[in-house]
């Protein structure tokens, strides 16, 4: 069966961008049209979507040990210096845009 957007292999590389709504509308529409006639691809997309959902719900099994007294004291000292503006020439860290 022929599809406007080509075969399943061709859409395989674009499925994450499709799920994240990061594809141009025309490309999205072509994938929608393919999915409308290709149940195996629908199953695959569902499994990929579920994978993303599981990652978003992921709760790690490891948690940090309680913050030690000395470590908290160092952080609090740094916070107080921040409030009093004592970090005169901070190291330059470029802000994310």
């Amino acid at each position, binding site marked *: 069966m*022929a599809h406007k957007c080509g075969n399943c292999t061709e859409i395989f590389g674009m499925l*994450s961008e499709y799920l994240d709504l990061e594809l141009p509308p025309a490309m999205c529409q072509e994938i929608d049209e393919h999915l409308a006639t290709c149940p195996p691809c629908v199953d695959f997309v569902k*499994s990929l979507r*579920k994978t993303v959902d599981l*990652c978003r719900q992921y709760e790690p099994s*490891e948690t940090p040990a309680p*913050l030690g007294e000395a470590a908290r004291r160092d*952080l609090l000292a740094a*916070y107080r210096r*921040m409030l009093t503006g004592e970090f005169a020439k901070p190291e330059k860290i470029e802000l994310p845009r």
Partner: protein
Amino acid sequence: MVAGRKVERENEIELVRQLRAGNPAAFDRFVEHFRSKIFQYSWMMCGHREDAEEVAQETLLKVFENFEQLREPERVRSWVFRIAKNACLMKRRRGIFEPAQELSLDELMPLAQRNGQMVKIEIADWSGLPDREVLRTELRDVLQRAMAELPEIYRSVILLRDVEELSTEETAQVLEVSTDVVKTRLHRARLAVRQSIDLYLRNIAETRGGRNGTQVRQLH
């Protein structure tokens, strides 16, 4: 973004405002919240609890030292993760250097058999993911192991994009790569994790006496 995560990000922004105002309660809440997040990211990236705890402490110290550079509180999460990412890199430089590994798209496609123009794929039945507590824990371990086994360049992207829910642009800025690179790596990371879960689901189905735990579907 799910509702709970949205509230979490809004709370982070409010925490930044309160920290700047000198609210002492905000200090402990900020430290507790981000220490846990940085630890979990670093633990997955460095692989050692001690390294992850050191990265969390070093990152938080840098955060306070450089706080005035965070001009927009809305960017606090990506800003903190950028500092954490650099701290992780410093830890890694002291360890054994691992060359970057690439994941191939072909290897991440479901198993397929070509018969003329038709291709048959094998995929587990994902409609009934485990709901019992013990299996949910098992699935969490499968997911954790799948992410931990990803080559580093893919692991960092899936942790930031899907676990921490940073945007593509934020992730690109944290990792200092282009948005196209983030998209490519994210897709391969997701496919690799999907493949591990698929294998796990097949094994469960096999244990329960299903037909190899797979459904064979015909591709075009």
